[in-house]
């Protein structure tokens, strides 16, 4: 099944003509409505008239997360506040959130993109979809929710937290599809096994995203739960989940190119690389009104493929992600930068103590432990003081990154320094 055949199966020529038309419109929109973009373009000597189609894309400057931070909160919005109907935010690298805004039309297009992804996963209006992403400022929950509703399915807005309740409802409501992170789904599968309920559920499909996973993990999920699992990709800056999703042939994620124009560039030279070559994924939004972004650098590393897929879609496919160009970690679907930990500790202690983040996966759930060296100024001969220090640090870190953090006090000079520079992250998660 294909949700929007006229768009998803367009010929390359037709698609490029549509992309060109939409790109010109978007460039005009940001030039006239966003001072930051206008100044940037003027500085580079570019006028909207210079962009006649996608062949002129490389004339345009890149946008980065720094630009969003500099214009916090609404500086890159291209629609009047009265037209913005939704705001989401994700944690930034230095405490300032990355804020995104949507007009009514943006929300509709987002819902359609998610509906396309769900359709790729075989979900129809006859299904009951449990959305087990977090609801709130994070785009995962509401993004999947609106898409499933748009499709006409019954939505159970489960959110995350009480897995036992989730499993009970999955069984009692006859849930047939679920949207959540892949590691959470493995956790759910284990609980189902434990409760002996794995044969009593009607689940047939899962749309998983918000964190990196492998084909092996997909097969593990599929075998454990006797379902088909699909990889959905997105990022809040560009829209949220539903920028791309794989189909039953699992040969990469189809990018909804009529709305998001992908490029792969070399993170070093910033020049586009060829088809099938790995580089940094860059998106230009083609229809967004609230927050259109020109050549936004995702920092995700992948390659792009234009050969025709057996499913009939002509949309380009991006490969599973091989990493990032920065040090961002994804822990339980939450983006975490070591610099966030650093600045929170700095704020709390005046100077940054040596610290080490240890990320692990226990029973399919990610854990984060932060070890902090007990320098003389933190040390007390009273256990209760040390305990309250531990609590204070974990509270400060939890506020900074929005994740529960286990803090462990360690002796000074025990965290390894390599080349005079501290190693700040040990990721013990094995994605196999």
């Amino acid at each position, binding site marked *: 099944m294909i949700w929007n055949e006229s768009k998803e199966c367009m010929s390359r020529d037709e698609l490029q003509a549509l992309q060109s038309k939409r790109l010109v419109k978007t460039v005009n929109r940001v030039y006239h409505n966003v001072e930051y973009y206008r100044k940037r373009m003027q500085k580079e000597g570019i006028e909207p008239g210079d962009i006649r189609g996608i062949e002129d894309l490389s004339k345009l400057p890149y946008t980065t997360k720094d630009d969003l931070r500099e214009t916090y909160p609404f500086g890159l919005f291209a629609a009047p506040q009265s037209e913005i109907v939704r705001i989401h935010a994700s944690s930034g690298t230095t405490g300032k959130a990355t804020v995104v805004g949507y007009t009514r039309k943006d929300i509709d297009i987002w819902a359609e993109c998610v509906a396309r992804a769900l359709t790729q996963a075989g979900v129809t209006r006859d299904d009951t979809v449990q959305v087990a992403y977090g609801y709130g400022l994070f785009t995962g929950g509401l993004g999947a929710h609106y898409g499933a509703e748009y499709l006409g399915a019954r939505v159970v807005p489960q959110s995350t937290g009480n897995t036992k309740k989730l499993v009970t409802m999955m069984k009692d409501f006859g849930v047939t599809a679920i949207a959540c992170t892949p590691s959470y789904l493995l956790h759910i599968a284990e609980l189902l096994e434990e409760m002996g309920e794995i044969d009593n559920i009607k689940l047939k499909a899962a749309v998983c995203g918000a964190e990196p996973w492998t084909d092996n993990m997909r097969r593990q999920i599929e075998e454990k739960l006797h379902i088909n699992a699909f990889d959905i990709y997105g990022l809040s800056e560009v829209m949220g989940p539903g920028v791309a999703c794989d189909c039953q042939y699992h040969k990469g994620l189809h990018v909804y190119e009529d709305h998001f124009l992908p490029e792969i560039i070399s993170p070093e030279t910033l020049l586009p690389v060829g088809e099938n070559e790995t580089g940094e994924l860059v998106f230009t939004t083609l229809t967004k009104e609230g927050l259109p972004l020109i050549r936004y650098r995702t920092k995700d590393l992948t390659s792009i493929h234009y050969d025709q897929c057996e499913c009939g879609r002509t949309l380009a496919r991006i490969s599973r992600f091989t990493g990032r160009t920065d040090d961002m970690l994804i822990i339980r679907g939450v983006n975490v930068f070591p610099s966030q930990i650093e600045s929170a500790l700095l704020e709390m202690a005046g100077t940054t103590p040596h610290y080490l983040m240890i990320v692990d996966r226990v029973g399919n759930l990610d854990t984060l432990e932060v070890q902090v060296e007990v320098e*003389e100024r933190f040390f007390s001969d009273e256990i209760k003081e040390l305990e309250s220090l531990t609590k204070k640090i974990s509270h400060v870190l939890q506020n900074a990154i929005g994740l529960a953090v286990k803090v462990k*006090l360690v002796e*000074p000079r025990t965290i390894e320094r390599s080349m005079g520079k501290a190693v700040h992250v040990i990721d013990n998660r094995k994605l196999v």
Partner: protein
Amino acid sequence: MFIKQLSVFIENREGRLEEVLEALKREQVNIVSLSLADTSEYGVLRMIVSNPEGGKEALKAGGFSAMLTDVLAVKLSHRVGYLQELLGAICRAGINIEYMYALSTGTDDASIVLKASDLAKAEAVLRQDGVEIFTNTDLAKMS
């Protein structure tokens, strides 16, 4: 008169305690008494030593977090209920005892080391009761 207690942070790892003791031994610092307060992940070793300043420097040089704290070393007589009476007096004065451990003096008397929320006030209360308080000089003699 307060005495200096040497405290050091130790992770619950094999061999750490021994390394602390070795650092002290190297500097010829003698331990008169000690108490180890532990949690599941770390402990605090509190010691009365012959040379608190030297001990602290030795531990710092060994890469440990160490500190000196004022505590009271109190001489007790061997009599049932004596400690309870002393603590009763401290309690009535509204002073909280943070921790306490036995001090070995090498004589027949029993002695304790204690840290209180208000050490000066605790000392005054005890002195009022005629209790003998050790000085740093007394301790130097013991070690």
